[in-house]
């Protein structure tokens, strides 16, 4: 086999910075919000259940403070959720897929197709209600990357595209 190893100037390489990211489905914002609201209400219900056993917790001044804190935190979390939606994005390239996330702590993860072991489409109960799904790409070593908020068809399409890419890579 002839081996060649030409020098590559880094400027010629495709850059991860000049990528236009696609946004998740707009309904995913609702999914994020509802998921959080359910969580917040479960917390509240849990508090009342505990309060049933320890009646001190249901005294008026304490209850007021707890409710106030709960509302403020929930409100903040909802704002954060909306923000976090704005920062989500994914981009397909010929040989890899990019996924970005994070409001304060931002990250970009790039998964090359020829490292993908297999992929999975998953739908949570709330996501199913809105016809959304998430696609998880598994690579070796337990590094999996999830792209959330795709419409089910889109997820299926992406999965097929990636599966084909993986297969094509294998054949070469």
């Amino acid at each position, binding site marked *: 086999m002839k081996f060649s190893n030409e020098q590559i100037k880094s400027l010629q390489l495709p850059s991860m910075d000049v990528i236009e990211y696609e946004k998740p489905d707009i309904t995913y914002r609702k999914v994020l919000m509802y998921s959080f609201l359910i969580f917040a209400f479960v917390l509240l219900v849990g508090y009342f259940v505990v309060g049933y056993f320890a009646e001190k917790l249901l005294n008026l001044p304490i209850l007021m403070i707890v409710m106030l804190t709960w509302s403020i935190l929930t409100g903040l979390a909802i704002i954060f959720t909306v923000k976090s939606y704005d920062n989500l994005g994914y981009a397909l390239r010929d040989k890899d897929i990019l996924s970005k996330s994070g409001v304060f702590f931002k990250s970009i993860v*790039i998964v090359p197709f020829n490292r993908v072991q297999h992929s999975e489409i998953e739908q949570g109960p709330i996501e*199913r209600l809105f016809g959304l799904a998430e696609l998880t790409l598994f690579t070796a070593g337990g*590094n999996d990357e999830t792209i959330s908020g795709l419409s089910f068809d889109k997820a299926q399409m992406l999965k097929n595209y990636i599966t084909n890419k993986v297969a094509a890579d294998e054949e070469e």
Partner: protein
Amino acid sequence: MKKNDGEFSVPTRQSYVAIIMILFKTINIVFRQLIPVLVVILLGGSEKFDYILWVISVIALLSMIYAIVNFFRTYFYIQDDELVMHTGVFSHKKTIIPLERIQAVNFEQNIVYQIFDVLKLNIDTAGTEKNEFQFQAIDALKAKRLREIIMAGKKVSNGIALNTLEENQPDNSEYKEILSLGFTDLLKIGLTENHIRSGGLIFVFFLWIYQNLQEAGLDVDEYSEEIPEWEWGINAVVLIVFVFLLISILISLGRTVIKYFDLQFLRFDNGFKIVSGIFTKKEVSAQDHKIQFISWSDNLLRKIIGYKNLKLHQTTASKANKSQLIQIPGCKAHHIQDVVDTIFDNKDINEIEVERVSFFYFKRFAMIWAILMIIGNSVLLWFELYNQIWVLTGLIIMMIIGRFLSYRKIAYGHDGQLLVLKSGIFGDKNTVLPLYKVQTVKIYETPFLRKKSLCALILRTASGQITIPYLPSESGRNLGDFILYKIESTHRKWM
């Protein structure tokens, strides 16, 4: 390509025994979580005992429903050389694994399983820590047939015989010894362990025992009061530190001897192997292509005697990933050179130019901890705990100095094939990673890093991740782009 003749091409469910297994497992898990709660409630007055019974019944009922739904929602079939599995009680989950990606199909069977003649089935794919998939119970015959088909599918698509998938290791005569540790080596290694760390572990351990005794109602302080008041002078402190150090050294020594007794580091045709152990001989081998990256390190004491600790990070299909790490203490520089030459085709690692990371790596850390120190000390001052102020200040200053030393060491670079990361505090650590072994690339930014146009570059491999912190945003992205180019343009397999 062999077709599967319809077998398993229709959705197949688990054995009905699975319902019992799942039920048992769920109830088991739920109750283990609930035990503390139940104990607290039962001890704290049983007025509401009725409710507890109710709760238990509801949990049992829900578990039963869960088990049944789970059973009906779990099925698999084989389609176009892919194993398709449907799972999930509350959410649909469809897993597709190409047969050729399956590394192993493992069976598990305890007594209960034997009675019903069923098997628990685990399907492993390459390099993942957890099992990709597990069936609670499948008829033994069906399970064995499934394994045959999967393995046959593998054979056809890989074009190689099955037995070559297993590690076929050569006879003893083909092993070449790289290094073996004698008793004096072990003594030296044990004595030069990181005693501060073992000391810390012992300290935490005793603290834990002390707290547990106290919680159990034993008044430990009562006994200590019988001892006449100590003069907490310098002498006592020195004595305690000395005894502490002595115990630490003895413990590290013991651990080293047990762990590395009679260690042999061997080379065979296309891999490495270590044999060691005092009571049970442990053998671990790593084939070259399975090694993802290597690292070696020393500490202040080992630097003096020139010993390094070499680690070969390899990927495995097995669950017990950690035990597959090959670690060889007591390597001399030339041993390391040997290994590097063998794996990386005589590359000179020292010729790779390295760059330091941003000074903010130190400055930011120092700032944050200085602020925490001021806050902590103010609190202590408020409560008039003057002695503790010294301890806290000392600890934080030590941490900051440690970070500074680490800043002076940390550097990264690559030559187009290999990435080198240098780090360490008192000692030196070197990590060498072939670029094409990287699985995914991640760029990470905190608000602070973004403001200073810095970032962290995280390279995940099949055997753990390597982080380059505080590097200029542009360098990070360029390096990331380059590594991606390397991964995507080579067809060299990462294992």
